[in-house]
């Protein structure tokens, strides 16, 4: 039990870091700002999104790998409880999360490709679309994981 709790905790910490990084990058690409000094929001928007790319890819892959290791435990010990308690919405949300993460992981090569040459304007719209989709997937996965953990998580 302790082993799985430690893995789950590491999974959560990586997810929090990933969430912060992808949110920063998504905001900076959707709502860019050159003048960083004026306000907190301006500084948040004004980061160089390109510098986040490799970190986001590594964090996404590490978080997904940890999640896929924990996943059988969820299937045996958590999902069965959700079904017994007829908590269909959290169960369905988790189903969607696992598929979204798989599609998100496959999106990473394209994400890297469009951020590789981020200076050009020709792929800006696509870069924005890919980044926002990845951010939506990460937010969904994080929120659903958090809710399911609250229902039956650490030490349960």
């Amino acid at each position, binding site marked *: 039990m302790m082993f799985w709790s430690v893995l789950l905790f590491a999974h959560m910490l990586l997810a929090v870091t990933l969430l912060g990084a992808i949110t920063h990058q998504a905001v900076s690409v959707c709502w860019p700002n050159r003048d960083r000094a004026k306000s907190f929001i301006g500084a948040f928007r004004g980061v160089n999104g390109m510098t986040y790319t490799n970190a986001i890819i590594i964090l996404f892959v590490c978080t997904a790998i940890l999640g896929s290791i924990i996943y059988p435990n969820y299937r045996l010990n958590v999902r069965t409880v959700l079904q017994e308690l007829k908590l*269909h919405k959290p169960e369905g949300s988790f*189903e969607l999360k696992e598929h979204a993460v*798989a599609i998100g992981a*496959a*999106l990473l*090569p394209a994400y890297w490709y469009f951020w590789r040459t981020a200076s050009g304007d020709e792929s800006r719209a696509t870069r924005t*679309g890919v980044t*926002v989709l990845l951010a939506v997937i990460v937010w969904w996965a994080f929120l659903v994981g958090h809710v399911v953990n609250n229902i039956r998580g650490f030490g349960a």
Partner: protein
Amino acid sequence: MKLARLFPVFSASFAVIYAPALYYNWALMTYQPAMVEWDFGPVTKSGPPMYWYGIVATSFIGACIVTAIAALLPDAAARRLWSGLTWLLPAAALAFIAYILRPYFLS
């Protein structure tokens, strides 16, 4: 950098293959967590079967095949494709998956 040019093809085709693979359960293998066993193809035994790993494997292999075929296309033909499909197709696949999971949210 020809290989990198194919990355968007891989990403989009993975999502396009993943959605029907999930719907029709084209899982390459099944993990039985209660018995700690792997089976080839979609198999149901005692305990809950896990098709997810198999569906990911099917989609990965399918996307690799599509990408290999795309590598044979001339650059001019590839450039004619709209790059926005890279995010639009995965987004559409996710919308389809949400649709097939709707019984969870309507019950």
